[in-house]
């Protein structure tokens, strides 16, 4: 099963399982989503549960917040993460604060799904990574699974979560990543990272598409006798500090890879956390591979490749850090 199939089947099962669940977004109904994720859902579950919305992201999220506070389980889709900015106030200013400002009287069991990331020649408005814009906000859960099995388990957990969840799906992995998916309903605990590959000489923390590149790079280095441990963060916030620290304490070296801009990115937070918690375990400077500080990913292939960290670059960085 590919990542996109994992999203589709999980959503389908959720709709079938729980009548409170509904999907709303641009083109999710008759069109079946631009990636055909919800194709056929409208016919199967009806227009009240698969709702086509106007091109108004603030409304999509705003209405979904109201539904969530009244007991439904809305899954709002932002067609591309690049379009989420109009809904920023609804997400940050309202959804994330609902439980806190109502002293727990209200919660906001809302899932906001959105494809993010580059590598598909999406260009300016279809390639952005948005996690750093939101992970600063307490009250908001941000998930970014990378494999079909994790997508299913974490999407189910997100739908169950009583508080708002921003569910990020890297579009490059939609069809390029395949994997076994356990049958039946299951959830993966939010806030738990996963060691995708065990190693001893170096810890790599990543997520999304970069995670798969990192795994490939680590496997290449295995032939050189370099043992790399690759951690899939999966949950950006809450962050699994324990898994990261445990790994760093074992390998004493840390490389963080993410596609989002480097400055102020999730790598900065992880780096600071490790420096605070495990400085005396470190045997090398913490290193980050991330997107450059440019406003957007270019459409031209050379520009896109320049923005995206290549597997070769990862290999080289891991090799140097292991050798340090």
């Amino acid at each position: 099963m590919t990542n996109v199939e994992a999203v589709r089947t999980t959503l389908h099962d959720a709709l079938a399982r729980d009548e409170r669940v509904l999907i709303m977004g641009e083109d999710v109904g008759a069109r079946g989503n631009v990636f055909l994720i919800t194709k056929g859902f409208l016919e199967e579950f009806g227009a009240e549960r698969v709702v086509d919305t106007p091109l108004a992201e603030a409304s999509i999220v705003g209405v979904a917040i109201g539904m969530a506070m009244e007991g439904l389980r809305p899954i709002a889709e932002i067609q591309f993460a690049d379009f989420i900015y109009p809904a920023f106030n609804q997400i940050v200013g309202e959804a994330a604060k609902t439980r806190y400002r109502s002293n727990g009287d209200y919660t906001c069991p809302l899932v906001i799904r959105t494809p993010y990331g580059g590598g598909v020649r999406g260009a300016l408005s279809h390639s952005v990574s948005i996690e750093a814009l939101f992970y600063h906000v307490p009250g908001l859960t941000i998930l970014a699974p990378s494999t079909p099995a994790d997508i299913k388990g974490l999407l189910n957990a997100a739908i169950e979560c009583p508080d708002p969840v921003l569910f990020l799906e890297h579009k490059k992995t939609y069809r390029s990543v395949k994997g076994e998916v356990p049958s039946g309903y299951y959830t993966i605990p939010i806030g738990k990272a996963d060691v995708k590959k065990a190693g001893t000489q170096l810890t790599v923390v990543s997520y999304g598409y970069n995670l798969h590149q990192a795994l490939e790079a680590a496997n290449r280095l295995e032939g050189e006798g370099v043992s790399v441990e690759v951690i899939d963060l999966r949950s950006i916030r809450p962050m699994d500090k324990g898994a990261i620290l445990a790994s760093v304490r074992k390998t004493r070296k840390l490389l963080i890879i993410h596609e989002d801009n480097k400055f102020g990115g999730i790598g900065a937070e992880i780096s600071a956390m490790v420096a605070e918690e495990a400085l005396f375990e470190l045997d090398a400077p913490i290193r980050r591979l991330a997107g450059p500080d440019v406003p957007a990913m270019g459409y031209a292939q050379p520009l896109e490749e320049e923005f995206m960290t290549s597997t070769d670059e990862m290999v080289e960085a891991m090799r140097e850090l292991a050798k340090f």
Partner: protein
Amino acid sequence: MPTTITMPQLGETVTEGTVAQWLKKPGDAVEKYEAFVEVSTDKVNAEVPSPVTGVIRELIVKEGETVPTGAPIAIIDDVAAGAATPEPTGSGSPSEQVAAAAGDRNAEANHQASDEPVPGGNVGLSGPTYSAPAPSNAASGNGASSGVAPGGVRVSPAVRRLAREHRIDLARVRGTGANGRITANDVLEAAKAGPSAAVAAMITTAKEEPHPIPAPPPPTPPPTTSAPPTPTTTPPPPPPTPTPQERAKPSYAGARPGELIPLTQARKIIAQRMVDSKHTAPHAWTMTEVDVTNVWKWRVREKDAFEKAYGVKLTLLPFFIRAAVESLAAFPLMNASFTDEGIRVHRDVNVGLAIAAGGNLIVPVIRHADQLSVKGLALAAGELIDKARRGKLGADDLAGGTFTVNNTGANGSILSAPILVPGQTGIVTTEAVVKRPVVRDDDSIAIRSMMNVCLSLDHRVVDGAVASGFLSDLKKRLEAMGPTGSL
């Protein structure tokens, strides 16, 4: 920022101090409040804590040297002030050494943040200063400066911590990391064989060691007034064979010299003061015997309740001191000092207690002992003895004595001739209490608890009449004490 440490004034009356022993040497890390020098004043060695966290830069005063209070004795580079500039010679980064030796996480963090080099990579273990080969900058490509400062190598926090934990001298660990950097694994490998073996195993060869440990200098030939002997192949004549008579003689030529115990500063001071006292004050000595049966009974009656109430054992000593200070009031010349200007009769009655503690003789003082009851004296003496045994006496505890009581009986002595504390006129001993038959005034014979009391006196101040009068008075007072009294 360097901090100059001065000779502290360890008591109000103290004007000078002797550096008894340096507990640190230049280059050593010292934490704030960590003792780094022993200073002797009076008869005690007081450990002086460092006022700053830093590294000893210079010891100005040698051991055994006496300087006035306030005189500079050492300079410490203050790490906390962030001015621990590495010496140009690469003798060590103060902040690094402090962090390594003291395990000061903050200091270590500060160091790491500043990305200072770690000259020598020494982690506070003893060893020669390390001058590592200067590898070129590690081309890590991560933007982190990984160059090498002159005279030293950088080590990561993990390496520093592991080296400290496993007691590995990084100066002797060969790095396998980029450009010779010492990695955490290098330290762990070195540690596998244990600290000393690890160090030996990882020592670089002389060829590779840029600054090998210098070999010890050749032994100096014995002084001679003649020309050096010409080398010859002729063997020296054999020693003459001893005759049977000579063999039978006992020979002491090969006697073992015995153990030589170096003089501690405290012992030096004690010796000097004893000599001074004996040379200065012409000692006379007298003794009386005291029937302490009744006061002993009193003590026995009170001791359990007293210990329960105050946590202090009630001995005969406070009763004795009480009697002594009353006698001093009756014979004030015994509480005096001989000076060139005249005999100074002290207004205060400050009784020193001679105590053996930690191999030294110290005499802490109960101030205004004449104003204390038996109970007060017991508590005051108990506190001083406790402090003496824990090494917590301060200079003020030892200063100002005007008369001394020496409890030699505690060790079973029945007679002793104590040496005066310089400047005092009398020192009196309480000897062991011994039960023996005594012929009493009414010609009866009774078993009594008897104690000898000995007095050494400065014959310049008092003569036999005063001394005997004092001793007789003391005897009467002790014998008058009984179970009907109040503590």
